[in-house]
């Protein structure tokens, strides 16, 4: 790959089916096996990868707790490499979160609950999920990661907050629907690549983007999973839009830290402007 790699991250671009959880689980285990063969240390799955995206009221039936037996094969698989898995998480106090769960060493290391639930156009997530209460790094043996689920990443402040929290890299997981607008790639994938690149170069962090592909309920998802380093250079060619595939990329905390030493943009963040903006907004 042309650069020294301390670790290997694999982006599992899969096509899931809403409600067919066993089928989806098999897609996970297949990708984990492939990732293990290429020496991956972390496998990143898309948003709601275990359940499918357009479950709608099906989340009432298929939401899982962290001790659900369905997760046992994934916990077992996580003994020798970390996994970030998307699932509808049944909360102890009621409600269901759109969650990304970090597994490693046979244990749950952390959970990010989606903050921004789109409820416009074709989206209706606010109807089925409760929004996440906080934004914090998730930690595993590879480092500190900022996890953003789909629309989380469209709010640029999310990545800035995580950068201020000192993450080593950002993991952006998505179930990104797309339309075709005449371009040679799906319109949604093109937008995602702008977001991934801009997020990387402005936070000076590598960004690893795992999107799903395929169809659910007549809705097309755009794939094109991709990874860039802290300067926005490709760490691997973008995945094709329509095909299940594993994108294998290097990840170097040292290289990212070196980039921030040379380009110290995040350290110059004017938090006083944030404070003033929050006060003006009455927040």
């Amino acid at each position: 790959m042309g650069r020294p790699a301390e670790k290997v991250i694999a982006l599992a671009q899969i096509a899931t089916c809403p409600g067919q959880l066993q089928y989806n689980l098999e897609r996970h285990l297949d990708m984990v096996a492939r990732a293990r063969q290429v020496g991956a240390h972390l496998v990143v799955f898309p948003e709601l990868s275990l359940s499918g995206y357009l479950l709608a009221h099906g989340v009432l039936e298929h939401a899982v707790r962290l001790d659900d037996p369905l997760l046992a094969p994934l916990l077992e698989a996580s003994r020798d490499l970390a996994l970030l898995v998307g699932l509808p998480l049944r909360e102890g106090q009621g409600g269901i979160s759109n969650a990304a769960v970090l597994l490693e060493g046979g244990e749950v290391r952390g959970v990010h609950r989606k903050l921004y639930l789109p409820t416009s156009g074709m989206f209706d997530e606010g109807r089925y999920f409760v929004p996440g209460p906080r934004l914090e790094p998730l930690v595993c043996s590879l480092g500190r990661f900022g996890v953003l689920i789909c629309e989380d990443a469209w709010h640029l402040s999310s990545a800035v907050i995580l950068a201020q929290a000192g993450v080593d890299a950002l993991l952006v997981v998505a179930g990104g629907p797309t339309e075709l607008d005449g371009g040679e790639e799906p319109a949604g994938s093109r937008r995602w690549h702008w977001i991934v690149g801009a997020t990387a170069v402005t936070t000076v962090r590598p960004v690893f983007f795992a999107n799903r592909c395929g169809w659910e309920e007549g809705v097309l998802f755009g794939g094109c999973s991709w990874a860039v380093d802290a300067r926005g250079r490709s760490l691997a060619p973008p995945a094709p839009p329509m095909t299940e595939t594993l994108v294998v990329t290097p990840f170097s905390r040292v290289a990212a830290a070196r980039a921030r030493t040379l380009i110290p943009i995040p350290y110059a963040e004017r938090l006083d402007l944030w404070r003033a903006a929050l006060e003006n907004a009455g927040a």
Partner: protein
Amino acid sequence: MLELPGISTALLAETLEKFLAEELRASGLAGYVVGLSGGVDSAVSAALAAAAVGRERVLALALPGPTSAPESLRDAQAVAETYGLRLEKIELGSPAEHLAETLGARADRVRFGNLMARLRMVALFDRARTVPALVLGSSNKSEILLGYSTLFGDAAASVQPLGDVWKTHIFALARALGVPAAVVSKAPTADLWPGQTDAGELGFDYPTVDPVLYWHHEGGMGREELIAAGFPATLVDGALGAYRRNRFKWRPTVVARVSASCMNVDRILPRNPER
């Protein structure tokens, strides 16, 4: 003049083939049954399905009636040969005449046309059950927006790969997929009575009306804006009139909600079997 945006036919074809492969997988059924009318829409649907799931899993039916043009069957055969599809011919003339006589519908060409369209639906779904297969639809976005279809007739299908694709783009897709030139170039027709054409009934052809529909439906432009943009008032009124008048066909039925668990209102669930 505002135009309909272009399309990448290669990406569109690849995308729709994935759709047909996934819908079949998720359904757990064995294949697709498609009615070949001899027209461009069903030819494209069949070509996509053959590429998606293999030609051996696509059964084509020719369903001629007493008023079908002779070239329709010939063109259907050409399409089947082009994609290596098994084509079964089911003559619907006799049952159509019998049913039309029973109903007293024979003298009214619209009633008889609708009856033919619905008999074809009956044949397709009956044959699909024997495979078992999904019925592959051939409706396109232009005719759906205009409501130019027979409810529970040609509009009825298990899946509609072309339902969000403009007719203008279907012509481009057809050429890219190698649909026989005679099928691509002939005037679109429902073929429900001799000499019938879509343009003759609608008052405009698809390349003319598609930009109007696009800029109204997707672009959010109203009547006055469309006319100010240069579209003729008669064209705009004709297109928007059909668009408003026939919108009920977008949702073929409505269920009266009297509980807090009404299907598709209070309980929206994935269409394919969960397992």
